[in-house]
C-alpha cells in the first residue's frame, strides 16, 4: 500500500529460478541484450571506480581548504570551489564512497532480515498474523521519519545508518517474500518434502528459498535505489556522516545557504551526482526485472 508497492506486485508473479543452469544463462543473455542494463552498469561502475580510487580522477584533495573560496568552474577547478576553498570536483568524486558502502550493506541487511521474516510468515500462519500487524505499523510511517527516529535513538554513525535503513527495509522485503512463499507453499514439492518428514526449517530454507530468489533479487536492486534515496535525504537533513567527509547530501546542506549569492556550482554537481547514481541503480533494477520475466 505504500509508495514502493508498484514494482513488488509484478515481482511476486515471477515464477522462474528453478535452478536450471540454462535458465540462468538465458537470464544473463537477456540482461546484457538490454540497453538500459548496459547504461546503468556503466554509470554504476564509474561511481564504484570513483569510490575506490578517487585520486585517479581528481587531482586536488577533497579535504584541504584552499585560498580561492567560492570560485566558479574553471580549468583548474572543474566544478569550482566551496566556502572553504575546497575543490568541488574532488568532493563530488570522493563523495561516492560512503554512499556506495552504506547503501549496499544496508540493503543486504534488510534483504537478509526481510527474507527470514518473509519465509517464516509465508510458512507459519500464527507468525504471519502477528508479524503482519507489526509490518503494517511500520509501514504507517514514512521511511525518512523512521530513519530520523532511529538515528536519534541510536546516535549517528555509519553502523546506525546501515542498521536503521536495513530495519526499515526488512518489512517491505518480508512482504514480497511472504507473497512469493504463499504461492510456493501450495506446490507439490513442498508437500513431498513434508511427507518425507523434513523439518520446517529445512523446507523453508532448502526447498522454498531457492525458488523465491527471483523476487528477492529484484527487491534487492529496487531497495538499493531507495537506500541511496534515503541516505541522501538523511544526510541532507544532517543525520548522516559528520564533516569534513565529502558527502553529496551533507554538502548540499552545507552549501545551500550560499546559493542565493549565486554560487550554484556548490550544490548543482552534487545534485547531479545523486541523480545519476539513483537513475543508474533503477535502470539496473528495471532491466533485471524484465530479464526475469523474459527468461
Amino acid at each position, binding site marked *: 500500500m505504500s509508495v514502493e508497492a508498484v514494482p513488488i506486485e509484478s515481482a511476486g508473479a515471477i515464477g522462474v529460478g528453478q535452478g536450471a543452469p540454462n535458465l540462468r544463462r538465458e537470464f544473463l543473455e537477456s540482461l546484457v541484450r538490454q540497453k538500459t542494463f548496459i547504461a546503468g552498469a556503466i554509470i554504476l561502475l564509474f561511481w564504484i571506480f570513483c569510490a575506490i580510487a578517487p585520486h585517479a580522477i581528481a587531482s586536488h584533495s577533497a579535504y584541504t581548504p584552499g585560498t580561492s573560496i567560492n570560485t566558479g568552474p574553471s580549468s583548474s577547478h572543474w566544478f569550482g570551489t566551496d566556502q572553504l576553498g575546497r575543490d568541488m570536483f574532488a568532493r563530488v568524486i570522493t563523495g561516492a564512497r560512503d554512499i556506495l558502502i552504506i547503501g549496499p550493506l544496508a540493503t543486504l541487511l534488510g534483504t537478509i532480515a526481510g527474507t527470514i521474516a518473509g519465509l517464516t510468515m509465508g510458512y507459519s500462519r500464527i507468525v504471519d498474523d502477528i508479524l503482519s500487524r507489526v509490518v503494517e505499523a*511500520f509501514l504507517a*510511517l514514512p521511511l*525518512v521519519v523512521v530513519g*530520523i527516529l*532511529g538515528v536519534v535513538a541510536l546516535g549517528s554513525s555509519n553502523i546506525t545508518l546501515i542498521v536503521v535503513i536495513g530495519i526499515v527495509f526488512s518489512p517491505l522485503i518480508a512482504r514480497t517474500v511472504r507473497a512469493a512463499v504463499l504461492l510456493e507453499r501450495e506446490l507439490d514439492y513442498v508437500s513431498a518434502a513434508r511427507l518425507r518428514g523434513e523439518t520446517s526449517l529445512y523446507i523453508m530454507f532448502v526447498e522454498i528459498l531457492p525458488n523465491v530468489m527471483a523476487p528477492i533479487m529484484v527487491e534487492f536492486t529496487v531497495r538499493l535505489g531507495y537506500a541511496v534515496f534515503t541516505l541522501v535525504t538523511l544526510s541532507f537533513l544532517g543525520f548522516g556522516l559528520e564533516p569534513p567527509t565529502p558527502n553529496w547530501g551533507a554538502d548540499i546542506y552545507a552549501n545551500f545557504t550560499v546559493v542565493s549569492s549565486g554560487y550554484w556550482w556548490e550544490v548543482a554537481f552534487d545534485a547531479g551526482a545523486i541523480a545519476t547514481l539513483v537513475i543508474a541503480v533503477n535502470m539496473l533494477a528495471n532491466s533485471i526485472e524484465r530479464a526475469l520475466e523474459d527468461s
Partner: protein
Amino acid sequence: MQLTLFILKRIGFGIITLFLLSIIVFASAQILPGDPARAILGPLAAPSAVKALSQQLGTNKPVIDQYGTWVGHLVQGNFGKSYQYQSAIGPILGKALVHSLELAALAFVIVVPLGIIGGVVAALNYGKPIDRIISVFGLTATVIPEVVSGIALILIFGLWLNILPISASGANGFGDTIYHLIMPAIPLVLILFGYIEQMARAGTVEALNSDYARTATLKGLPRGVMIRRHVLRNSLLPTITVIASQTGYLIGGLVLVENLFRWNGIGTLLFNAAKDKDFPMLEAGVLLIGAVYVVATLVADTAFSLLNPRIRYRGVE
C-alpha cells in the same frame, strides 16, 4: 450491513496499528542512553537539579508506568509539554499540521489531474512513442530524491530566471501563499506523478481490454462515449486508492521539502524536535503522522468499497 462490518473491521485494524506504533515510538525514545533530564540540563547541571527534573518529567518511574501515563494522556488529547518550547505540544502541532496540509493540498491539486490525464493518455496510446515518453518520465521522476529536484528548481526558477521565491517563509494571504508554495510543491508532484500515472495507465489498459469495452464498441458506441462511460469509470477506481495511500509518502517528503524551502510545517517541526532531542514533541509528531496515514488508508478503503461493490462481497482479508 456488510459495509458497516467492513468499516468496523478496518477501524479495528487501524487502532491495532496505532497501538503497535505507539509502542515502537515509545520504545525508540527509551533506547537513547542516559537520562532525559540530564540531556536537557547538560553535563554541568547539579545532580539535585537533574533529580528534580526527572521527578517533574516522570522519567524516574518504571517504563511501563511511563508508557501508561503517556498513552492515557494522548487518548485524552493531551500531547504533553515540549522540552524545547516549554509549552503545550497540541497547539504547536496543530498549527504545523495546517501549514503542511496547505502544501500537501497544493501538491495534490496539481498532481492528481496531471497524473490521471498522463496515465489515460499513455493507455490510449498504448505502445506508441507518447506512451513510452510519459511512462519513462514518470518512472524517472519518481526515483529522483526531492533534494535533487528541489535544488534544480531553486537554481532554475529561483536563481537564474528569478521568477519564484527561494524561501517559502513569509508568505502572506491566500494568493501569496500559493505563489510561495508552488516551488516546494513541485518535488512532491514529481514523485507522486509516476505512481498515479502508472496506476491510471494500468487501470485504463485493463478496462480497454475488457469484455464490456468490447461489447460497447461492438454495439456501435462512438469511441469517445465508450471511453468516458465504460472505460474511465472502471479504470480510475484503483487510482483513488493509490492517491490516498500516498499520504504516508507525502509526509516523509514534506520533512525534506519543508526544510529545503523553509516552510514551518510538521516536517520542520519533527526535524527540529529530532535535532534538539525534544522527545515529547517527536513522539507526538510521529504518532500524529501514523494516525494521519491510518485515517487516510481507512478513507481510501471505504471509498473504494463504496464505489466498487465487488470488494464488499469478497470480504476483508
